[in-house]
């Protein structure tokens, strides 16, 4: 009684005690709040940026790939046609248009002139162009279209090859001319038939004709090969990567609707929505709440029928569960492992990291060929590799004890995916994903008879078409 009297007096006095804080305190509080708000904004903006930039860059990359394939096909088709048409026309016009085409192309080239030989080469080409009887209109009539700018690379290689050969030929020609000039025949006067043979135009013409014929043959062969390559063998394995992000939770049933905290051997605590308040000598734990979870991994898949696939994989997944704890209890030697249940206002992130081996079946739904839909279902065996999850003691504290967890888990998953860029080399499948752990997380303690549930968005990219 006496003790209470003294304490009452102290409490009464202290409850009335007030001090006016200095003005700087509010300014500091405002600044701190603003800083936290900005930090939050930066995190949100960064996340949004990633959400836009990653799919955006993937989309651009795919478009680029698509253009390359289109250009390749365009070159093959049109150049093949042009050469065929050119050959036909040349039969009428003594092969001039083929030569003209190549020379015209060579003239348009912006390859830098690096030495005298090349200059000479160009001069010869110009000269031949002037001698040519065929106009640009006739070239157009011959069905020769200029290739797209981006498709020039392969043609340029061909052109450089021809130029090299022309150069060699001109050198030989020079040497021959020199030897002829020295010979008695050259002194006696020009011989028309020999001059005609040694004319650079004639030499070029024969050389270019040979090359065009060669190129046409090669292109025809190339065109015929992909027809066999395009057919993908049904049982070919393809590798892919996946990433899923979403919310992980724990609960006593399928959708984790009832996720109230339950302590398996506490005889009489009262479940409530918030944690930490004492009920006699017992405390009750705070309710676990959902938090961010993700899975990332690689998989191999193959067709088992035209519309079904089987996939095996190796993933890393991290599930997180939030609960409220009080202050860290210090002075125990393992201070970070013990948290008070009193005044539980601090968020604690319990993470569970797993390695998992999923086996999935995928079936195509519907007939949409541009964006095919597929349904996926499978089983997953996962192994807990590490966790920082807290257990609860009704004496009023949280502690760590990983031996209470079932290390090996069996789960089921399902998802519905839409495949974007399905005709491309690296199609992207994206869609909602749901995972449910069939086995209990633990048989006692805070996670007694609870299951993991994960709901999120999964993206998969396939490689190696």
């Amino acid at each position, binding site marked *: 009684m*006496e*003790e209470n*009297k*003294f*304490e009452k*007096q*102290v*409490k009464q*006095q*202290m*409850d*009335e*005690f*007030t*001090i*006016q*804080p*200095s003005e*700087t*305190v*509010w300014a*500091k*509080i405002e600044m*701190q*709040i603003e800083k*936290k708000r900005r930090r939050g904004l930066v995190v949100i903006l960064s996340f949004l940026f990633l959400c836009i930039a990653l799919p955006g860059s993937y989309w651009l990359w795919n478009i680029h790939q698509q253009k390359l394939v289109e250009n390749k096909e365009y070159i093959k088709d049109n150049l093949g046609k042009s050469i065929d048409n050119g050959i036909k026309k040349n039969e009428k016009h003594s092969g001039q248009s083929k030569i003209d085409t190549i020379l015209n192309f060579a003239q348009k080239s912006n390859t830098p002139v690096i030495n005298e030989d090349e200059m000479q080469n160009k001069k010869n080409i110009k000269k031949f162009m002037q001698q040519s009887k065929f106009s640009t209109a006739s070239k157009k009539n011959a069905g020769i279209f200029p290739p797209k700018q981006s498709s020039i690379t392969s043609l340029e290689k061909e052109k450089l090859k021809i130029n090299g050969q022309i150069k060699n030929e001109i050198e030989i020609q020079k040497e021959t001319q020199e030897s002829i000039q020295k010979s008695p025949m050259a002194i006696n006067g020009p011989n028309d038939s020999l001059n005609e043979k040694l004319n650079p135009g004639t030499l070029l013409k024969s050389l270019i004709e040979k090359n065009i014929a060669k190129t046409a043959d090669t292109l025809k062969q190339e065109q015929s090969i992909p027809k066999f390559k395009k057919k993908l063998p049904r049982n070919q394995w393809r590798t892919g990567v996946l990433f899923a992000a979403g919310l992980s939770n724990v609960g006593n049933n399928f959708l984790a609707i009832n996720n109230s905290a339950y302590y398996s051997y506490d005889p009489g605590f009262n479940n409530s929505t*918030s944690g930490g308040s*004492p009920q006699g*000598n017992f405390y009750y734990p705070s309710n676990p709440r959902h938090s961010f979870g993700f899975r990332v991994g690689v998989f191999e898949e193959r067709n088992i029928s035209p519309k079904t696939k089987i996939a095996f994989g190796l993933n890393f997944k991290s599930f997180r569960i939030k609960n409220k704890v*009080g*202050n*860290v*209890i*210090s*002075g*125990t030697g393992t*201070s970070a492992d*013990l948290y*008070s*249940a*009193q*005044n539980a*206002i601090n968020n604690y992130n319990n993470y569970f990291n797993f390695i998992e081996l999923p086996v999935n079946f995928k079936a195509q739904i519907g007939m949409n060929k541009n964006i095919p839909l597929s349904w996926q279902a499978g089983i997953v065996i996962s192994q807990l590799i590490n966790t920082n999850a807290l257990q609860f003691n009704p*004496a*009023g*504290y949280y502690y760590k004890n990983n031996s209470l967890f079932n290390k090996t888990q069996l789960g089921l998953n399902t998802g519905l995916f839409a495949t974007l860029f399905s005709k491309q080399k690296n199609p992207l499948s994206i869609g909602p994903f749901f995972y449910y752990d069939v086995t209990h997380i633990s048989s006692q303690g805070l996670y007694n008879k609870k299951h993991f549930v994960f709901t999120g968005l999964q993206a998969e990219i396939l490689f190696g078409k």
Partner: protein
Amino acid sequence: MDYNKLVKDNIRRRPGAQKQLYEHFAPMMLGVCYRYTKSLADAEDVLQEGFVKVFKYIHQYKSEGELGAWIRKIMVNTALTYLKTSKKYQHDLSFTEMSLHPVSIDDPLIKLQAKELSELIRQLPTGFQTIFNLHAVEGYTHVEIASMLGISDGTSRSQYARARALLIDWIKKFSLKEQTERYGRK
């Protein structure tokens, strides 16, 4: 003052609501923080941290309890965290179990001003000061204090008994000194 409206305004982040809440509770809360620390600057630091937490978690406040008590709880917890993490106080906050000190029957009638009593409490060693504040002023049981500070409830009891005895002794001396100063030696 309509606390429910004030809380709602704070949750909706209405302009001026945070300052209104701060201005209403800051003097009382600084008094709380002052009792746990050794200087006014430290008390203001605790007050600042405490109010940042209040604004962060205001949506979790349930109107069943008194708003002032809820804020006070946050301030006390912030003060304890500050004492545990601050280098100045960390060393002073080590507790050793002492033999139980007999409770004095001859309790003085406190004729001191709140400020004077508060100053005397602050003169106690940090460990004594913390446990005395938690038990005598905030009304926590020794089991609760043990859980909050990570000590045994026996240590909390013995530390409190010592702190109480020391404080009573100082109150008596202070009263005697004041009486002598006012009326001269008998």
